[in-house]
C-alpha cells in the first residue's frame, strides 16, 4: 500500500511539472505585461509583480496601429475560413458521396498541396499577386490562405460526410430533391459539428500564419497580428512590456476558444490520422 502511495505522489509531481512547463511562458507574458518599467528591466525579477500597471496595454493601442492589425487579422482569417468551408464542403461531399471517374487522382492532387513548402511558391506567388494588383490588399492574403487550408478541410469533411447515415439523403432523392438542394438543405445542417471543428482549425491556421503575411502585406496598416508583433521595435530599447501586452491580447481569445471547443479541436486535429 505504501509503495502505491509513493507512486501516486510521483505521478502528481509529474503532472505538475507538465502543467508548469506548458503554462509558465504564458503566465510570464501576463506578468511582464503588467510590470512597471523599473521592475521589468531589472535583472532579478520577482515571480509575482509587486506593482501592477496597465500602461503597456494602453500604449499598444495608442502608439501603434494594433487595433487595425487585429481588424486585419479578423477580416482575413474570417473570410478565408468561411470561403474555405464553402468550397471545401462541396468538394468533400462530392468525394464522399458522388460517383465520378478519377476520384482518387483528384484527392491526391488536393492532398499533395499540403506537402508544399510555403517558401517554394513565395517568390512566384508574389509576382502573380503583384501583377493582379493584390499586394497590400485583403484578397491578396485571403486567396492564398484558402489554398493552404483547403487540403485539410476537404480531407476532414469528406471523412465526416462518409460517416453520416445515408438514409436521409436517399429519402430526399426519392422525394425528387436535386443534388445541390439535398446537399444544402439536408447534409450541411446535419454536418454543423464537423464544419465547426474544421472551421476552427482553418481559422487558427490563418490567424497564426506569418510567412505569407510578412511578404504580401508590406504597409504597417495592412500588417496582420503576427507580423505586427514580430515587427515591434522602439527607439532606444525593445518595448518588451508592449510586446508581452500585445501577445496576451491576441492569445486570450485563442485560449478561450480552445477551452470552449477543446473536444472539437482535438477531434479535428486527430481526424484521419488515427484510423491509419
Amino acid at each position, binding site marked *: 500500500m505504501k509503495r502505491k502511495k509513493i507512486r501516486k505522489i510521483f*505521478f502528481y509531481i509529474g*503532472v505538475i511539472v*507538465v502543467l508548469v512547463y*506548458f*503554462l509558465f*511562458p*504564458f503566465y*510570464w507574458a501576463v506578468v*511582464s505585461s503588467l510590470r512597471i518599467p523599473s521592475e*521589468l528591466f531589472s*535583472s532579478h*525579477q520577482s515571480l509575482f509583480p509587486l506593482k501592477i500597471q496597465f500602461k503597456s496595454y494602453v500604449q499598444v493601442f495608442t502608439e501603434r496601429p494594433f487595433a487595425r492589425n487585429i481588424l486585419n487579422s479578423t477580416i482575413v482569417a474570417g473570410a478565408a475560413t468561411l470561403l474555405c468551408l464553402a*468550397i*471545401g464542403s*462541396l*468538394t468533400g461531399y462530392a468525394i464522399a458521396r*458522388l*460517383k465520378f*471517374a478519377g476520384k482518387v487522382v*483528384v484527392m491526391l492532387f*488536393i492532398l499533395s*498541396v499540403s*506537402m*508544399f*513548402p*510555403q*517558401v*517554394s*511558391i*513565395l*517568390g*512566384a*506567388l508574389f*509576382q502573380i499577386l503583384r501583377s493582379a494588383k493584390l499586394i497590400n490588399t485583403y484578397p491578396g492574403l485571403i*486567396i492564398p490562405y*484558402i*489554398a493552404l487550408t483547403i487540403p485539410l478541410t476537404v480531407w476532414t469533411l469528406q471523412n465526416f460526410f462518409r460517416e453520416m447515415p445515408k438514409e436521409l439523403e436517399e429519402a430526399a*432523392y426519392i422525394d425528387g430533391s436535386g443534388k*445541390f438542394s439535398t446537399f444544402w438543405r439536408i447534409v450541411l445542417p446535419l454536418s454543423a459539428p464537423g464544419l465547426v471543428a474544421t472551421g476552427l482549425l482553418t481559422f*487558427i491556421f490563418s490567424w*497564426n500564419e*506569418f*510567412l505569407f503575411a510578412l*511578404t504580401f502585406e508590406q504597409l504597417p496598416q495592412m500588417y496582420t497580428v*503576427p507580423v505586427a*508583433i*514580430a515587427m*515591434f521595435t522602439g527607439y532606444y530599447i525593445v518595448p*518588451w512590456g508592449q510586446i*508581452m501586452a500585445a*501577445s496576451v491580447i*491576441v492569445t486570450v481569445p485563442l485560449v478561450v476558444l*480552445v*477551452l470552449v471547443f477543446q473536444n472539437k479541436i*482535438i477531434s479535428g*486535429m*486527430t481526424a484521419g*490520422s*488515427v484510423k*491509419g
Partner: protein
Amino acid sequence: MFSRKDPLHRSDPIYAAAFIIPTLAVIAFIAFWPLGQTLYNSFFRFALMYPQSKVFVGVSNYGKLFHDPRFLNDLWNTIRFTIWSVGIETILGILIALMLNKEFKLRGFVRAAVLIPWAIPTVVSSQMWRWMYNDNYGIVNTLLMEFHIVKNPIVWLGFPSTSMPAIISVDVWKTTPFMILLILAGLQMIPKELYEAARIDGANAWQRFWSVTFPIIRPTLGIALIFRTLDAMRVFDIVYVMTKGAANTETISVYNQWVLFTKGFIAPYFGYGSAISVTIFLIISAFAFLYVKMMKIKLD
C-alpha cells in the same frame, strides 16, 4: 433494392465537376501555377524589381547552389533542427500521452492546458521565449543564477552553441502538444483487457509498453512523425523572430526568403532564389515520398 438507373447509384460527372472545380481552381492558381513559375524563374538571372532584364542562364543557378557554403550550412542547420526537435517531441509526447491516458483528477484540465501552446501563434510564442531567454532581464538567467548553476548571465541567442538549442526548445514547447494529442488518440483505441491480460501474464510496465502499447500506436506515431518532420524542415517563424538567422541558426527557408526579397530585390538574385525554392521543394517531396512508402509497407 434500387435499380441501376435510380439517382443514387448513377455516375454524376456534371455535379461532381461543379462541386470540385472551385477547389481545383484555387489550388491550381495559388499552388501549381506559382510552382511552375518558380521553376521557370530558376533558369534566369534577374532582380525582382527588373523582370524585363531577364537573362537565360540554363541550370547554372543550380550549379551555383552546390558551391554556396551558406546554403549547405543552412541545410545542415535545418537537418540538425529537425532531428533534435522531432526526436525530443516524440519522446516527450509519448511520456505525457501515457500520463494523460491514466484516470486522475486534473486530467481534463491538463489536456486543455496542453492545447494552449499549440494554439498560440508561433510568432507570439517565439517572442515570449525570446523574452525569457533575454540575457539581461530574462527569467532563465535569473533562475540559473539564483540557484548558483551559472555565475554570469548566458547570452543565449548570441552564440551558436546556445542559440540553436534555445530555438529547438521553443519548437519543442510549441509542437509537443500536437504529438501528445495524436498519440493519446491512438492510445485510447487500446482495449483495457489487453493490459489486464499482459499483467496476469506477469509482464512489467516496460514489457507491457513494448509488447502491447507500442505496436498499436505505431501507425499513429508514424503519421505524427511525417507531419512533424515535414513541418520542421520548413521552419521559418521561430528562427526569423528569435535570431533572424544570426549565431548560425539560419535555416533553408530563412535563407531562401532573404535571397528572394532582400538580396534579390534590386540585385539579380531572384532567379537564384527561385532555384533554392525548387531545391527545397524537391527535398521536402523526397522526404514525403519516402515516408509514404515506408508507412505503406508497415501498414500492410
